[in-house]
């Protein structure tokens, strides 16, 4: 991707799944890849388990836009069951990409590119669990890097910087596996 135009991304997750951290790690990785990013959290009455969103922008130039993202080109869904609660496709640009944490392809409306990765399986493979939840946010960033054509090394290094020690190492490995395992269909 050349990023002449700003690419806008929306993350859907549950409170506690780490969508804000995912957006932040993505922006760190973009910087390492020579791109500019903006990670924008959205705050409301958050609580663990409730549907939450975060946003990001990608560009080859410094980003001046501050208004909210209404029609993203990429939607990232950390929990496939969220689509029963919120319209995760809202505003998604025609021809846009939806990346979803799922073991198999899901039936998504025509006109979008669908990518899926089994982030739960990858997380559990490395025992990345906390309070009964699989830690899927870093594998999801790994898969997203593939879609955005950002080198996975940039993601791995960004994860290691934000999370020290073994936990950073395992998350970096999980991100690379998701980068390799993500499948996209038109």
């Amino acid at each position, binding site marked *: 991707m050349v990023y002449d135009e700003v690419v806008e991304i929306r993350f859907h997750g549950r409170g506690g799944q780490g969508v804000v951290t995912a957006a932040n790690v993505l922006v760190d990785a973009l910087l390492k890849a020579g791109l500019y990013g*903006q990670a924008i959290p959205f705050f409301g009455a958050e609580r663990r388990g409730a549907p939450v969103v975060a946003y990001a922008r990608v560009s080859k130039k410094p980003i*001046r836009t501050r*208004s909210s993202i209404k029609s993203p080109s990429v939607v990232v869904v950390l929990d496939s069951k969220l689509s029963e609660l919120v319209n995760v496709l809202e505003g998604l640009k025609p021809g846009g990409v939806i990346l979803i944490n799922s073991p198999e392809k899901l039936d998504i409306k025509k006109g979008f590119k669908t990518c899926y990765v089994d982030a739960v399986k990858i997380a559990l493979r490395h025992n990345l669990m906390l309070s009964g939840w699989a830690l899927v946010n870093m594998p999801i960033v790994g898969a997203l890097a593939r879609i955005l054509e950002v080198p996975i090394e940039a993601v791995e290094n960004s994860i290691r910087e934000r999370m020290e020690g073994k936990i950073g190492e395992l998350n970096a490995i999980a991100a690379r596996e998701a980068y390799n395992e993500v499948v996209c269909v038109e």
Partner: protein
Amino acid sequence: MALKTLTGNYAIATAVKLARVKVISAYPITPQTTIVEKLSEMIELGELEADMIRVESEHSALAAVYGAASGGVRSFTATSSHGLLYMHEMLWWVAGARIPIVMAVVSRTIGPPWNIWTDHSDVMDHRDTGWLITFVENNQEALDETIKLFRITEDKRVYLPGIVALDAFILSHTTEPVDVPDQSLVDAFLPPREQPYVFRAGNPLVLGNIPRDLKWNMRMREDVHKAMERAKKVIEEADHLWEKIVGRRHGGLTECYRCEDAKHFMIGVGAWVGDMKEAVDYLRDRFGLRVGLIKVRYFRPFPSEDIIKWLNNAASAVVFDRSISPSVGGPVFIEVLASLASAGVRTPVRGVIAGLAGVDVTHEDLANVMLTSISEVEELGAFKQNVLWFYGGE
């Protein structure tokens, strides 16, 4: 020098660390809290040698910082919205006492109803206190201007406290690349603290006694006014020095974007100036309109001279305000009108009230307001209404 990804709040905390602040006091309030959380962490890790004074209110936070600063050390506080209002009385004391202090205000809507999103009402409510007030557009400017403000406020020609205002969430909690200057560069830029007097044991002073001569009181207020005027030059100098040492300029009191051949001007303060720049490009590229943007970087002192210079031969100007002085208009609009009137400039000016309470405004929205305004002024030679409420495109 190194590019790092920082939120606006972490950019402020980083600037405070680089400025070698010695005393910090604050009371938590959304969306300011992560500034002082980060500073606490820096103190805990031994990265910053400073004392953090915990207090029970914002009024006490500024009182504590005022005490420390009067004792001769560089001091910092931060707040937002209702916290700033609760602090209001102390702002007058600090400015009147001519004690340099830097405060970050994460500008947030004032209730009722409760609302955590950005608008500029909280900061604008303090325009008459005697504090310097700068609004920043992005996290880089948040970092740079905080450091600069220490130098500016501690300049003997100024000796007034200063507010660096950043928009809630769209800057405070948004992560983006920020160039963090080396400590050695900041040390070269920022001399040791100076202030008009220091309270010390063995040198008793009385501050704020009832004056026998009321004219003394009045002269103090005039002196604050004059210092604010002198600050204009000091701000420009600091901007040039920062460029010389760090290699980056944001403009002095104002930044004029694509103004050279502009006929119609947008004017604004704060983060949405970025969206205004997008709107200027859009209007020029898509419609061939000669539109420019005056970004007011310092609201106090107000850059009347710059406004007069740019608008003297302009066809029109539209001022976008994210706050309102009821029955008059937006604070920036009022100052622009006053500046032009003082110089006899009769350029038509419209004040648009938008984005209050965090209502989203896109660059297309801004461009649409400009298209309507420009066609009105070209047809009628004036605006139909001077103050326009704009709620956005949806």
